[in-house]
């Protein structure tokens, strides 16, 4: 029987690069290696996950008891807005970007992404945008109009400079996501190893491909929405000025035309991770492999046709309401296909439960609870009752925490050993899992009842006799549990990175290409280019005679892309333009724009 240890005997490849590599800090600032960029995304995402969690902890303390004055209403609004903005754009999306960056090229047997420097540019633009957004805490207060930033709340007459930081920061994140989307569409479609047909692309890489289309096509509407908002606030246009005939619905349409596909951006990668992990720990192939892929594509398509269900209460009229109600209900079908395929995978498997598997299995019921309450909202009469109540908060936190975040935690335990070369501690992992699961359900399950008992979202305090005291106290205790559990994970990651048990190339006896190379992989990923013969190349290599991955006779000469300062340069110029817009320093904008032209010229003429 073939084993992956054989790969160690592959003829050693030779490199050539245009410039000798940098070391230390300079290396991290100029790197174009998808793995290092993945690590940068991952560390940023983890940092912001803690920031967003801290924000939640603060406003949950405020809500723990009635008539509390721990926070002012203004502070509460700022923290709620930044909690959501941070969790969506700065925590979950970067962690997804980390997994995409690190693992997509490995999964498809490529040496890097299609455009390594563009990849670095996406990261720096994201990082600068996130810093700009958060610097609002230091300069005049955080944005406080909610993460959805409804007009006219965001107008100059109702909100301060926080909104300027919000729109400029988000505009940078939109640029970053659009560029990354284009880059990964090309990478996954065009950089596959020989023999890796589209149907042999791993499910996680497929789900990442789907979300890249969502990123590339759903960010432009919010970019336009933000530009219009920026023009209103900066140049005196009247897009959202009701006194000039402006219609606040315009923002809502532009925002949710982005916002709903964004929901699928957050959840599809976790579905992909679960689809990778379940087969490994059941020792079975994924049940209905192709159905899982096609249902992911269907969810992506449908994502563009359902945004109106966020707006049933604004009065779009019965025809629009009916249309959005049916499209929303239809999304439940491909989602159900996935759920049953996961159950089918578990059925009759030889199941083991390491932490990664615990999170992956727990994803299924937790996500299903959120999914079912989502299907309830597809009905306008029910939605009208629940709109703006804690029921909705419960719904999307089951999807985003029980679903997206648990999926990503599963991914951390499953994939981090490939990055660090060390296994995470299983005992700490299980403590993390059980405490987090308890905390999550303690916080969000009672919120269904809170909503039905009439507690609206986004209120900073409530009277003692409303009957909401117990559930709010439980919610706060749950958030404390989730925070502790997350700290356990952070501790686990740090300790195991330093002195964990060595993982080896293939700790889980898995079936996809990323496990055939070393942990961590060398800069060129693979010593030789694998030729893929099946949907589970590594599994078949190890178990199916005739499907062994063949090593070449002679070594390849590998061209490695060289480091570059250009991505950082251009991203800094974009930051300068945004700062110029914020401060009304027009010369700065002009200088920065010229800097972009110069930077891009130097970029394209630089030998890579």
């Amino acid at each position, binding site marked *: 029987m073939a084993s992956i240890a054989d790969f160690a005997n592959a003829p050693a490849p030779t490199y050539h690069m245009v410039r000798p590599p940098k070391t230390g800090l300079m290396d991290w600032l100029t790197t174009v290696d998808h793995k290092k960029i993945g690590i940068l995304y991952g560390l940023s995402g983890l940092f912001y996950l803690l920031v967003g969690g801290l924000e939640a902890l603060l406003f949950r303390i405020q809500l723990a008891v009635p008539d509390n004055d721990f926070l002012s209403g203004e502070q509460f609004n700022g923290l709620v807005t930044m909690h959501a903005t941070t969790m969506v754009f700065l925590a979950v999306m970067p962690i997804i970007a980390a997994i995409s960056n690190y693992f997509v090229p490995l999964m498809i047997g490529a040496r890097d992404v299609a455009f390594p420097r563009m990849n670095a540019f996406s990261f720096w633009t994201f990082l600068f945008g996130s810093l700009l957004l958060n610097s609002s805490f230091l300069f005049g207060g955080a944005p406080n109009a909610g993460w959805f930033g409804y007009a006219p709340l965001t107008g100059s007459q109702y909100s301060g400079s926080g909104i300027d930081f919000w729109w400029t920061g988000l505009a940078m994140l939109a640029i970053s996501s659009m560029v990354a*989307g284009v880059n990964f569409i*090309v990478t996954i479609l065009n950089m596959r190893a020989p023999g890796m047909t589209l149907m042999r692309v791993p499910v996680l890489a497929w789900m990442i491909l789907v979300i890249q289309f969502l990123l590339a096509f759903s960010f*432009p509407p919010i970019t336009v929405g933000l530009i*219009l908002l920026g023009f209103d606030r900066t*140049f005196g246009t009247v897009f959202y000025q009701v006194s*000039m005939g402006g219609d606040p619905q*315009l923002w809502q349409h532009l925002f949710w035309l982005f916002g709903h596909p964004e929901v699928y951006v957050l959840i599809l990668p976790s579905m992909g991770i679960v689809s990778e992990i379940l087969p490994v720990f059941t020792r079975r192939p994924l049940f209905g492999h192709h159905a899982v892929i096609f249902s992911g594509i269907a969810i992506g398509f449908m994502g563009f046709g359902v945004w109106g269900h966020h707006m049933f209460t604004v009065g779009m009229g019965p025809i629009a309401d009916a249309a959005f109600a049916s499209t929303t209900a239809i999304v439940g079908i491909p989602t159900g296909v996935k759920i049953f395929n996961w159950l089918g995978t578990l059925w009759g498997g030889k199941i083991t439960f390491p932490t990664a598997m615990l999170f992956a299995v727990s994803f299924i019921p937790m996500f299903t609870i959120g999914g079912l309450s989502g299907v309830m909202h597809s009905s306008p009469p029910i939605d009208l009752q629940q709109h703006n109540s804690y029921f909705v908060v419960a719904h999307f936190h089951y999807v985003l925490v029980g679903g997206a975040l648990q999926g990503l935690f599963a991914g951390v335990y499953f994939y981090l050993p490939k990055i660090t070369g060390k296994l995470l501690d299983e005992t700490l992992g299980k403590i993390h899992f059980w405490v987090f699961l308890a905390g999550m359900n303690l916080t969000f399950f009672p919120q269904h009842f809170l909503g039905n008992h009439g507690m609206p979202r986004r209120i900073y305090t409530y009277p003692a006799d409303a009957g909401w005291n117990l559930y709010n106290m439980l919610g706060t205790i749950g958030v404390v549990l989730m925070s502790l559990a997350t700290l356990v994970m952070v501790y686990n990651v740090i300790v195991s990175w330093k002195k964990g048990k060595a993982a080896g190339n293939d700790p889980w006896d898995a079936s996809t290409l990323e496990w055939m190379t070393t942990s961590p992989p060398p800069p060129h990923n693979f010593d030789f280019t694998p030729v893929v013969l099946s949907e589970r190349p590594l599994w078949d290599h190890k178990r199916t005679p005739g499907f062994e991955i063949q090593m070449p006779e002679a070594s390849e000469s590998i061209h490695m892309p060289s480091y570059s300062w250009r991505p950082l340069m251009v991203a800094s110029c974009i930051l300068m333009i945004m700062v110029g817009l914020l401060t009304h320093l027009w010369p700065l904008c002009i200088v920065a724009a010229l800097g972009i032209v110069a930077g891009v010229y130097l970029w394209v003429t630089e030998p890579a």
Partner: protein
Amino acid sequence: MSVHAQAIEEEGHGTGSLGVPNLKLAMWAFLGSECMFFGSLIGTYFFYHDHSLAGPLPKDVFSIGITSISTFLLLMSSLTMALGVDAMRRANAKRSRNFVWGTALLGLTFVGFQVFEFHHFVTTKGLTLATSLFGSSFYVMTGFHGAHVTVGVIWLSIVGWMIHRGHFGQEKAINVEVSGLYWHFVDIVWIVIFTFVYLLEFAK
């Protein structure tokens, strides 16, 4: 060397799994994204253009004659662009450079017309960004189109310069072709804007 090692080798110039060069696929994906961008801007214009509470209306400010000339120039620039790409495929660098620079010049003329148009609207027609919903949505939509043309002009000038310096031979014709894709797209957006924003105003 394997297929995709080669694709990395030339960062964007190789032919990948789909049989399309990376650079071209990336441009198509980007243009798809741009469709959503201009779709949102044009959608905003249509949502708003007859909701204005005050100020000059589209019919009061548009001058079809002048805009027709600039539109014609922009359409012709797509022809010169196509000829430039074709010349590069046939390895006629000098001819390609001339057509590419010619395209940039036509684009620049279009931008000049737009600057004149904006200036005229502001000073004699009294339509500014802040006048009305029509003013806001018209200037932002056409302004972003003009900004795209300007980016294209800079891009094509540099492409022409690099052909002139001998950096792009026939094997790098893809660079010219991809700038051409962008240029045609910007042109098509203008066809939509000219037809639906300008001409339809007078069809009613």
